[in-house]
């Protein structure tokens, strides 16, 4: 147990820190908006059951309701039709070992600041690898766009032709899958770009990543606090029977440089 005790010692001393990549579950936090004809994602809601009152004198508690895909959340392979037959593709059947693992962070914030529709291309990934080394197999890849800094209507950025937010091109997703990534995470409301319904295939991050039995994370924040490589991601969804995803607390462990 030396490794774990060393880890605890490092965390106690502050040389390993915990970064919270999670938004607060708040009734006002945006959820993805689909065309009006489709079923919609439920927003987060809480109803007070009692609050130290006649309904329960010594305790306070709430009943919650939300979608599997509300707030900072995890996408399981069976979320998408391409992953419907993925083995162990639901939140309750995924090997829990994959919930802890290494993470690479691609800084795409400058491109995203220039264009709301900034599209991650293979060239961006290759440039990142040229600087930081190849993306290792079975590694989470997170796309930093600083989109989590946006507030209110600017977050979904809905217009009369749909949402406008950055995301990966089909070719970029294919390259990541060639590297054998474990999953792909974003700061935006989905792993795909706002206009990804017009890509070929539509919604390539969902279609290709879940089709390959891999995982998604979205509505992340604080990615600007993570190093490009070397952090460890902890992202364990709720164990929902047959769940297609889950709100979750996403944490990253980072090593502080030695003083």
């Amino acid at each position, binding site marked *: 147990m030396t490794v774990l005790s060393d880890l605890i010692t490092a965390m106690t001393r502050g040389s390993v820190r915990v970064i919270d990549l999670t938004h607060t579950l708040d*009734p*006002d*936090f945006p959820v993805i908006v689909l065309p009006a004809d489709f079923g919609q994602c439920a927003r987060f*809601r*809480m109803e007070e059951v009692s609050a130290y009152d006649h309904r329960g004198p010594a305790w306070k508690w709430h009943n919650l309701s939300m979608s599997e895909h509300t707030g900072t959340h995890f996408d399981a392979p069976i979320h998408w039709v391409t992953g419907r037959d993925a083995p162990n593709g639901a939140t309750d059947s995924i090997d829990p070992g994959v919930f802890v693992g290494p993470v690479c962070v691609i800084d795409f914030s400058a491109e995203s600041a220039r264009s709301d529709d900034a599209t991650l291309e293979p060239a961006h990934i290759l440039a990142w690898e040229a600087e930081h080394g190849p993306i290792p197999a079975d590694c989470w890849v997170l796309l930093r766009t600083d989109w989590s800094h946006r507030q*209110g209507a600017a977050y979904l950025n809905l217009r009369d032709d749909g949402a406008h937010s950055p995301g990966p091109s089909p070719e970029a997703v294919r390259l990541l899958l060639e590297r054998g990534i474990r999953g792909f995470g974003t700061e935006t409301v989905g792993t795909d770009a706002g206009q990804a319904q017009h890509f070929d295939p539509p919604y390539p991050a969902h279609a290709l990543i879940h089709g390959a039995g891999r995982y998604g994370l979205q509505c992340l924040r604080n990615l600007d606090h993570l190093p490009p490589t070397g952090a460890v991601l902890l992202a364990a969804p709720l164990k929902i029977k047959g769940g297609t995803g889950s709100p979750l607390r996403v944490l990253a462990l980072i090593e502080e440089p030695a003083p």
Partner: protein
Amino acid sequence: MTDTPPKRKDPRQRTPVPLLPPVQRSRAALGLTLAAAEGRFALQGCAECGAVQYPPRDACRACLSTDLTWREVPNGGRVVAQTRIHASPDPYFREHLPWRIGTVALDAGVPVIAHLHAAVSRGDRVRMALRLDRAGQGVLIALPDIEGSAMTSDPTLRAMGTDPRHRRVLITDARAPESLALTKALLAAGAAEVRLGEPETWKAWDGRAAFDGLAAVSLHPLDVTDTGSVRDLAAGLGGKVDILINTARHERPGGVMTGDLTRARDEIEVGYMGLMRLAQAFGPAMAARAADGVNSAAAWVNILPVQALAHDPGFASTVAAGAAARALALSLRAELRGAGVRVMNAYTGPLDDDWHQPLPPPKVAPKALAQAIVAGLCDGLEEVHVGDIARDLADRWRRDPRLLAREMEGGLS
């Protein structure tokens, strides 16, 4: 003086406790209340000899037949006697003295005792109306034969009514198709302020800009599906809601067996639970302010699909949620009536909006719904039916609810 905007309240003074005029009525006399609730002028008439009856009774004053039916009668008359009451042992009237009443000989053939409008006196031709008083009971009032600006400033009418003039209004969902027209109609009727709830401020919407630059109009975050949001706005507005108009609703086509459970839940969350959340957050403060001067709390308005009186296979769960909301609204009416705050239910036929697009006309223009609500508030109504379909369905429902239920099996389309 009710025609000048009220001064700000003196915070050193206690808010008067709402009092009611006498509430008790016989079962027969409640017929006046039902007619007044809809703005109809109706009295009992004998089915055998035709004699018009007043006051309401169980047997004909002329032939003793018990076959008396309520029917609309001509509302003309002449004031033959008047008096001004300066002293009363009744706590409600003590606060409203002096109070004028008189005897009016109706063209319909009976003399009646009625409240008198300030501009009416002995010998005048008058237009009679049945109005709900502060207790929500039907009473007769003699109005000037010609409508004029004095109508809005009459203290007797003001004491009974729910006129938006000088009052502060909360419209719960700015995104409802009628909310902009409603805002403008309320301002035209003299409302002091119109505040509108805006759900999901993180979702951009096209109609928002139309509210910009309207004087005395403001948008506030409010989502009736979020208890915290409803409580937050109620806490922020405090006792500044005199009229609440609940425009929040979620209407989707679909049947029972093939319907969508997620949508049905949304319909209940918005239409039924939303009403309950609003009532719990805003109701108590309004009930406490029903006698709070010129801009007292006065009315609560619900907008319901008229099919909620029966059902509609084409909008099965939407209409069922509307029926649930209607039942809740009737209980809310009973609760608020005790304080003197009126609950008006506006039953509308299908609106000319996106979710009723394939339905054939006649459909209700959002502007027509808005105007009907404001007119209902000016007349102090409890039941308003908007559009030809709503009026027709309500008429058939009054005659035989079970027959209407059968007739609705084919839906509205």
